[in-house]
């Protein structure tokens, strides 16, 4: 694989070059006084940070229903965010045409909830930081893909601290066109390597009940999920979680009910809905006011279910979402 070796500043100048274009924007991170946070840059970069060590939300969330024609948006985001973007564009929630998605090697993040003091923002320092502390978010520690290998192009960091920009699509090539130098063979070993394969997720309903005991059904997890894109969620209606009259009617028919009811329905149905598109970013858990270990469930289920079809959400623009296609000759043992 070929890419272009750059210094960090080279990327910034390339982005600034890009921002000179009419209606060109960059979605990336800004290093502010209180730390790093996502920002959409217009005109030129300002306090730009390539990495963001703190995870609050998955930035793909901001891209839903992005159809604006004529405006060019460059995404300089974490792999999990780019993957969510890829899934969303498969679901026509984002038009791919005007977006250049660049995934950046991610050394891991800490939770916005746990942020105390300064966290380094440079890759090598961050890597060392996580080596010496166990503050990395659980989602990141078990992340399936922290390498910048998804989207139109990737920014990879080698073991010597060099930055590599590697194009994956034609659009990625155009990004490269704005940069100086020649393409050369990318080193095989990088700072961020391939993730370990996670163990098969296994749990039982008793544990589930215990873990979700505190759930208040605020549904923040759904609202902050980057791939939970529905305009009108099924759980707004009365079919699954009746409210008001429908609730009373149901109780009159069936008997006393502990409130809030329908936790299993809500979480399991949502788990199924996002099973093929979940990127395991942990935004749900981040959003949960009750600290329920949602990532464990959502990521665990989605990995198992995606694995059945050798699918990985966001890995490629061309792979169809498994539930929307089939092979005649497969799943021979599906029948009982």
């Amino acid at each position, binding site marked *: 694989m070929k890419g272009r070796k750059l210094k960090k500043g080279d990327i910034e100048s390339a982005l600034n070059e890009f921002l000179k274009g009419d209606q060109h924007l960059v979605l990336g991170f800004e290093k502010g006084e209180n730390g790093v946070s996502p920002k959409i840059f217009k005109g030129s970069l300002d306090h730009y940070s390539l990495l963001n060590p703190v995870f609050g939300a998955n930035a793909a969330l901001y891209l839903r229903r992005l159809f604006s024609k004529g405006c060019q948006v460059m995404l300089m985001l974490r792999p999990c965010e780019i993957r969510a973007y890829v899934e969303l564009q498969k679901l026509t929630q984002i038009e791919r045409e005007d977006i250049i998605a660049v995934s950046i090697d991610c050394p891991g993040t800490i939770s916005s909830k746990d942020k105390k003091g300064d966290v380094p923002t440079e890759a090598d320092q961050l890597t060392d930081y996580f080596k010496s502390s166990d503050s990395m978010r659980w989602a990141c520690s078990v992340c399936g893909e922290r390498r910048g290998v998804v989207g139109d192009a990737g920014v990879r960091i080698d073991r010597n601290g060099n930055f590599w920009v590697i194009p994956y699509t034609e659009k990625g090539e155009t990004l490269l066109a704005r940069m100086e130098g020649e393409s050369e063979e990318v080193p095989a070993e990088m700072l961020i390597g391939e993730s370990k394969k996670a163990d098969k997720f296994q749990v039982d309903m008793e544990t589930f009940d215990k873990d979700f005991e505190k759930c208040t059904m605020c549904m923040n997890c759904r609202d902050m999920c980057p791939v939970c894109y529905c305009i009108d969620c099924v759980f707004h209606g009365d079919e699954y979680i009746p409210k008001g009259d429908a609730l009373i009617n149901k109780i009159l028919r*069936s008997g006393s009910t502990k409130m809030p009811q329908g936790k299993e*329905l809500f979480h*399991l*149905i949502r*788990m199924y809905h996002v099973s093929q598109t979940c990127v395991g970013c942990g935004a749900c858990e981040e959003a949960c006011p009750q600290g329920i270990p949602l990532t464990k469930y959502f990521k665990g289920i989605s990995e198992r*279910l995606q694995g059945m079809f050798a699918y990985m959400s966001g890995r490629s623009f061309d792979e169809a979402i498994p539930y929307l296609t*089939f*092979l005649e000759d497969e799943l021979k043992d*599906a029948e009982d």
Partner: protein
Amino acid sequence: MGEAKKKDGVEIVGFACSFCTFKASEMAGSLRMKYPEGVKLVQVPCSSRVDPAFVIKAIFEGADGVFVAGCHPGDCHFIKGNYYTRRKIAALKEMFDAFSMKEKLRLFWVSAAEARRFVEKVTDMHNELKERKNEREKA
């Protein structure tokens, strides 16, 4: 689990496609074959109509088991519907497996002529669930 009062018997909700499995169940009736009364069918035009949410709902409203049954792969009246069913329900089964309740969901292919197969499949499922239920109650 759910709020519904647990009944004594084993309750199974089955989704049966109109063109194959429901026909087979009709035939089972005409031939006076017997199967447990806990088995109740929801008729759907095609097994691909079965939203996995129905299955989840049935389980958490108190069903001991759910099965989805349609035409054999390749025989779908709607040409390809059951291939989608196969993917979705297989995935859902995987999910149930992850929650250690694999036994609660089954997928059957039963053609319109296979009344006996229908009866065997549902009876078998019923018996297994019954056994598990008894074991649980004993424990």
